[in-house]
């Protein structure tokens, strides 16, 4: 194939704005939303079988990196998105909460699988009945386990939330009240 016949690179849609000769006008909020949406750094918190599906999702075949999540962050301090995949025992609840507390704002949480969402089949004394008992969750992905396509679908839902989030949200009284209801500073 000669160089000239290569397809032109695909460029994603630009946010709403005024397009003119040599300039483009939009709001800071929209530009920031677009930038954040396409550079989410996920922190995988994989505890059991669903984590295996995440490994497939992160691998070359499904390739989560296509959506800007090139770099899984194993330090919560540098992560934007907490992906909880798997059964969380009650004993692990405080650990999960601490990981969440260590993340810098803005932060999002994706609960992957029946266990992380509701406790799943482990309807028992030792298992946390959904991680939303200890931290706020933005998107739930159903399935036991969900296929990688579903995890990607969940990530895209997160991206929509990230893009449309207004800049003042994290300082709003509603958000503070939400965190306070979980006992998070």
């Amino acid at each position: 194939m000669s160089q000239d016949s290569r397809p032109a690179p695909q460029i994603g849609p630009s946010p709403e704005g005024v397009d003119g000769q040599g300039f483009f006008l939009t709001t800071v909020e929209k530009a920031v939303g677009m930038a954040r949406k396409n550079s989410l750094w996920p922190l995988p918190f994989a505890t059991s079988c669903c984590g295996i599906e995440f490994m497939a999702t992160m691998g070359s075949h499904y390739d989560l990196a296509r959506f800007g999540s090139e770099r899984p962050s194993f330090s919560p301090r540098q992560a934007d998105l907490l992906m909880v995949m798997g059964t969380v025992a009650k004993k692990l609840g405080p650990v999960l909460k601490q990981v969440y507390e260590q993340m810098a704002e803005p932060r999002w949480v994706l609960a992957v699988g029946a266990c992380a969402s509701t406790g799943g089949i482990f309807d028992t004394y030792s298992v946390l009945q959904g991680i939303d008992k200890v931290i706020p969750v933005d998107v739930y992905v159903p399935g036991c386990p969900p296929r990688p396509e579903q995890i990607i679908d969940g990530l895209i839902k997160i991206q929509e939330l990230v893009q449309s989030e207004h800049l003042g949200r994290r300082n709003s009284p509603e958000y503070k009240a939400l965190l306070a209801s979980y006992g998070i500073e």
Partner: protein
Amino acid sequence: MMIEPILASLQDQIVKTSNSYGMTEIEVVPSELVSVVQALMTHPDMPFTFLTDLCGIHLLEPTPRIGIVLHLHCLQTNTRLRLKCFSEKVDSPTLPSLTSLFSGANWMEREAYDFYGIQFVGHPNLCRILNEDGLTIFPMRKEYPLEDATRQDKNDSMFGR
């Protein structure tokens, strides 16, 4: 070397001897547990020096009782022995700790405490090992219904069951 003469020499401390699943099984008087295990462990011809397993057990029949099951192994003669010991008090079972003989008994006894609430007298650090510290029950005791209808931590309104 046979195990029967050894057990015969300990017969005052043994409640009963039987054989099941291809293994000799003895039930020991609780107050004599440490001395029996020590005698088996230090026997010159057949020293049971290896503690394979220690776990809790709750039997309802013929009478309710809580106890432990030990599996001992003599590596010299490749002989295994199952040893049971029950506490008389079901509400607050108490048994002597074997940590003075086997260091490996430490975590196994913590597990038995965690799930059955057995107090091991002489254990250096008897606290929960697998469950969360705040748990108020001993979950493997056969005293709970399979499902507690009054539990609050399951949200049925959104997801159902």
